[in-house]
């Protein structure tokens, strides 16, 4: 668990560094950002692969099928671990995630943990929300009860595929079901700390050198573009994740930065990102040998647009 916290902290710090590097005098330092991205990836891998129960972040195997599912409320804060007291409320799942191949959708978890009871409540109505809520409360050993939910409440998923954009911000199942002790969609604590990212490319093409880690996407590619659903997804779940990016989900950011820069993603996401000959925006590290998971889903995410959105 400590590793996870440490890793999480390092991830936050790294992202902060990348973000701050945009405003540096003299332009982005390629070397430093490359190193930061390497650390980010290492931390992310540890974070995602640590079998300790992830109280607020875990890989969910089944994303909800409804693409239209709104980001109810502010996106849950991935950025902050749940308060210790709340954490204690979570019955720790004893078993590691049992869905090895499955975990793909990871959602932002509400930073406000709900009482276990609420989790159970959620479970009941899970059908639509499926794993999301279940996943979110993964720590709750719903695993046992989760049979119906169909998802591994699986603590940390083995596959550090990274948060899919399926970032269900908050626990509320569709329809706003709120059982007793319903989880409230607490605003992401982290959200306040993060500047709201501009929804589009803030800079001209080619002038992105001073930009953050993302080049401007080619004009015409909208940051809100939905990724294609990958046919292999277990539940045919939608990779509806991407749209949630604009909420600045840190988990997704990590996945984007970690993956795309390490070449885990397919090299040319749809949408095309401009490869500026100019000062490279941000770090990129490719260590194909360290691919932890090759879940195909992530490939469909346009990393640049999401990254831009996030920043």
């Amino acid at each position, binding site marked *: 668990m400590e590793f996870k916290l*440490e*890793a999480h902290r*390092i991830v936050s*710090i790294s992202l902060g*560094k990348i973000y701050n590097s945009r405003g540096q*005098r*003299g*332009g982005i*330092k*390629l*070397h*430093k950002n*490359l*190193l930061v991205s*390497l*650390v980010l990836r*290492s*931390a992310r891998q*540890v974070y995602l692969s640590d079998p300790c129960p992830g109280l607020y972040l875990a890989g969910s195997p089944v994303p909800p099928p409804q693409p239209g599912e709104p980001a109810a409320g502010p996106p849950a804060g991935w950025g902050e671990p749940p308060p210790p007291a709340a954490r204690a409320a979570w019955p720790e799942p004893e078993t590691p995630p049992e869905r090895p191949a499955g975990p793909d959708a990871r959602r932002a978890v509400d930073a406000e943990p709900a009482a276990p009871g609420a989790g159970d409540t959620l479970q009941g109505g899970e059908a639509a929300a499926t794993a999301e809520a279940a996943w979110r409360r993964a720590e709750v050993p719903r695993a046992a009860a989760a049979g119906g939910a169909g998802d591994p409440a699986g603590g940390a998923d083995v596959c550090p595929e990274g948060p899919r954009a399926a970032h269900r911000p908050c626990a509320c199942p569709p329809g706003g079901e709120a059982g007793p002790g319903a989880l409230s969609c607490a605003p992401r604590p982290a959200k306040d700390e993060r500047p709201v990212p501009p929804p589009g490319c803030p*800079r001209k093409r*080619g*002038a992105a*050198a*001073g930009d953050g880690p993302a080049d401007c996407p080619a004009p015409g590619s909208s940051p809100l573009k939905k990724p294609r659903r990958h046919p292999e997804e277990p539940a045919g779940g939608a990779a509806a994740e991407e749209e949630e990016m604009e909420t600045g989900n840190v988990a997704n950011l990590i996945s984007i930065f970690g993956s*795309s*820069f*390490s*070449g885990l*993603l397919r*090299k040319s996401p749809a949408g095309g990102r401009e*490869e500026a*000959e*100019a*000062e*490279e925006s941000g*770090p*990129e*590290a*490719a*260590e194909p040998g360290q691919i932890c998971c090759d879940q195909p889903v992530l490939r469909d995410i346009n990393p640049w647009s999401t990254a831009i959105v996030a920043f």
Partner: protein
Amino acid sequence: MSSQRSFEPCASEADIISTVEFNHTGELLATGDKGGRVVIFQREPESKNAPHSQGEYDVYSTFQSHEPEFDYLKSLEIEEKINKIKWLPQQNAAHSLLSTNDKTIKLWKITERDKRPEGYNLKDEEGKLKDLSTVTSLQVPVLKPMDLMVEVSPRRVFANGHTYHINSISVNSDCETYMSADDLRINLWHLAITDRSFNIVDIKPANMEDLTEVITASEFHPHHCNLFVYSSSKGSLRLCDMRAAALCDKHSKLFEEPEDPSNRSFFSEIISSVSDVKFSHSGRYMLTRDYLTVKVWDLNMEARPIETYQVHDYLRSKLCSLYENDCIFDKFECAWNGSDSVIMTGAYNNFFRMFDRNTKRDVTLEASRESSKPRAVLKPRRVCVGGKRRRDDISVDSLDFTKKILHTAWHPAENIIAIAATNNLYIFQDKVNSEMH
């Protein structure tokens, strides 16, 4: 070791020294700072009149080398900070040096003027033309001594050669060419030609997403004009031979040490990044500095360094904090002494370290005003890492990480060292042991 004195300009960011370099004889010492200025010190000749001020360094010349620029196309400001200065071998009465910021290299010529002609026929003392009718005889103008004037003029500007930030320059032993390296490319220039350069190393991947390492430092071999080395952020060194191909992407030799798996952490990659590489004067060895160690490599052995010295291993358990406060990205330089028997590098708390390769002894010294009264003798310092603590020891937790010695230089022949501590320059001379061992 006795200290000379410290030069202390007003404390401002622009005064932070960013590079220090002796010339080939050691007579001149150049420093560059963040404000784009270059200050050159000259060693005073030893005189019998003032035996105590023999061989001290005084300011010789100051000039503004680089100014901040703005790249309008990329909306980027280009810092004026001097990243590196390299002296050219002296070929006539003038001295020349190369100075570079992130993007532009400049060749400066430093000349002295200590005489001026007097007694012109057509001009008077103030330079006004004389009335010819008053000129009744001819005289030969004579050179009269004047106060020494040091004139510095930019002779060449090597611009637009680099897309990324220049991190090193190195003059070739052929005295005609030099190379400049940025994060991804190395260019070869001719000192007389500014409008073109040859790209000799290019590690930029076709897809920047595949980028895994960058060039961190590079240097020409001191004797073989065809050889140069460059270091990478992954901790490897590549020796390249320009005779082999026009583009030296393929190395002739690759020097890297396998990582110790027991030391693996989130930050292993960062601390293995080489921040400086220096050939020994003999040309047989290379010295590299990474975050925690200095290593000596034998050009004939690629598998591992022949010597590794721990600079401040007590920081290994603090890497996370150092990552947070960005100290882990500090780029320390390293230096050989003239006989290649001692190596030196900087650390935190204004400490710097010297390692004697023969005796295997090492010493930690501090560059501070207290310890550097003129003629004061430097006292070795110690950092205690728990356990028995002696009286003057500094504990790891009380180290001041804002006081870092990144730039050091060693006189090419004598035991004189120049230490840059933020905005102060310290020059220490070992009067007792002025002979090289």
